[in-house]
């Protein structure tokens, strides 16, 4: 026997507007918070070089030097790019926390989805 048809409540215009704005605020908060807290992007370190004012001092060979110059760069303007390195050091606690957040999210997702899916199937095909 099919489950009685569930008739959802009608949402007011104000309710629709509130839901849209809520999602929008959530999106901007999630994406802009790391940027404004300056936590976005990797930590960078600086490579030690012999001399930042010459191509040789920056460890560039003749071919590399020629290409930098064709791109309109000087040793001074290229130094920041050449010496910048990502800092990949991390602590295991941070990694563990991140794994927990990712796995936890998927567990939550599948758990609630399963319950909702059972509703859908029961109404569509009836009780087994």
């Amino acid at each position, binding site marked *: 026997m099919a489950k009685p048809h569930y*008739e*959802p*409540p009608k*949402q007011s215009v104000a309710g*629709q507007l509130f*839901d849209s704005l*809520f*999602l*929008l605020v*959530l*999106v*901007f908060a999630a*994406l802009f918070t*790391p*940027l404004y*807290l300056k*936590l*976005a*992007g*990797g930590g960078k370190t600086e490579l030690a070089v012999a001399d930042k004012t010459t191509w040789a001092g920056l460890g*560039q*060979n*003749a*071919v*590399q030097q020629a*290409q930098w110059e*064709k*791109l309109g*760069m000087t040793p001074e303007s*290229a130094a920041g*790019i*050449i010496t910048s*390195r*990502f800092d*990949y050091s991390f602590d295991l606690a*941070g*990694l563990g*926390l*991140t794994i927990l*957040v*990712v796995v*936890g*999210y*998927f567990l*939550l*997702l*599948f758990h*609630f*989805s*399963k319950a*909702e*899916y*059972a*509703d*859908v*199937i*029961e*109404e*569509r095909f009836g009780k*087994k």
Partner: protein
Amino acid sequence: MSQTTVVHGEKISLLRVLGPGHIWALGVGIVLVGEYMGWNFSVGKGGAFAALIACWFAGLLYTCVAMIDSEVTSTVAAAGGQYAQAKHIVGPLMAFNVGLYLVFAYTMLEAANAITLGYLVQTVGTMAGFENVHDKPFIVLTIVFLAWLNYRGVYATLTFNLVLTAVAFIAIIVLFASVKPWSGEILKHGDLLNGLPYGMLGVVAALHFGLWYYLGIEGTCQAAEEVRSPARSLPLGTMTGIITLLLAATMTWYICSGLMPWEYLGQAVTPLFDAARLTDSQPLMVLLFIGTVFSTLASANGCINDASRAWFSMGRDRYLPTWFGAVHPTNRTPYRAIMFLVPVALVFAYFAPLDQVITFSILSGLLGYTYMSFNVIMFRKKWPLDTIKRGYVHPFHPIPAIVLLVLCSVTYFAVFLGYGTQLVAMMVFFAVASLWFHFHRYKYVRRGDQFTMDWPRPAGY
């Protein structure tokens, strides 16, 4: 199956006008821009060789995505693509999340395209002596113009994409031939490549932006409801698309790594245009300028198409306010969804840096690929091969799903290396949105309407 929306008492559905060529253009059109910008940040994260290895691993990841997606999409041919799949296979909350992944992956990619186009116009303007050219007006103009084009109609939009994509792809081939890859006359790999500056950890880290070579190819199935013959066109369009991208990615890496120092390449905004500059050929510069402009336009265009269809589908199913589920009575496009997403794209294109915008897009895509690996296993389990007719059956199941899940896990770690805060922020966002949906929004959802395919009852339910 064609789903409809009622407007003024009349049922209006999306038009079935697209063929395999349009599907190829939609997939490649969105992604080809990944060769023109963004992929090279993987060089910054691990060096040029690491970027090449990442390109191959990402190619493997996307081959799994294309195989899996072709099977499921050729069976669940409804607007919204992976979103419609999740509705039928996993459940409403997963569908809501997948819808959000799609919207953010594409809207952020659209924003990244607009940033690149604005930057390019500014660079070329400066080279031409117009020092006061600003990128911001071009960013706004790009997003608004393409939104208007999408508002007008899907056929004109994707036909426009077909032309832009073909020109952008030909530009890469012409550049590749012009740098004489068979000789060392122009390309100087021996003098410019420097091994692995970060060691093997850099190879893993590079996988983060390695996804950018192909991100969005799964967008082919967003237009499933507007395709004339989904069972044939979707697998054909998607598979030829991934082959095209594998070729373009390899050519792009070879050209760029042989022309510029890896440190420069790792942070360049328009690497292929810069490569053309380094050939000293004015016609090539003009061609790659056109190629970059066309690829960004085609990609942004396809992104608006895909993001709006996912948003529209969620509105139609009441996962979002029903106001978004409207089809334009004349143009037959999801016009409210298109217009709603314009300011979101504008805000990000205007205020956020390119690598951050790309990371948000990649993370949304990555979550979607993780879902796909579970999705196909559940699909086969709930409806074994002999229970429903599939347009395409992917081979070696479940190996592609397992490989995909492993590669996704490695990529999460790659994003964690350098962009861990964004990763956690995004996960928290999706967790909060999921709780909001389950405990608030779900009450507006019509249960039985979430399953519209003419399939038997799933096994185990």
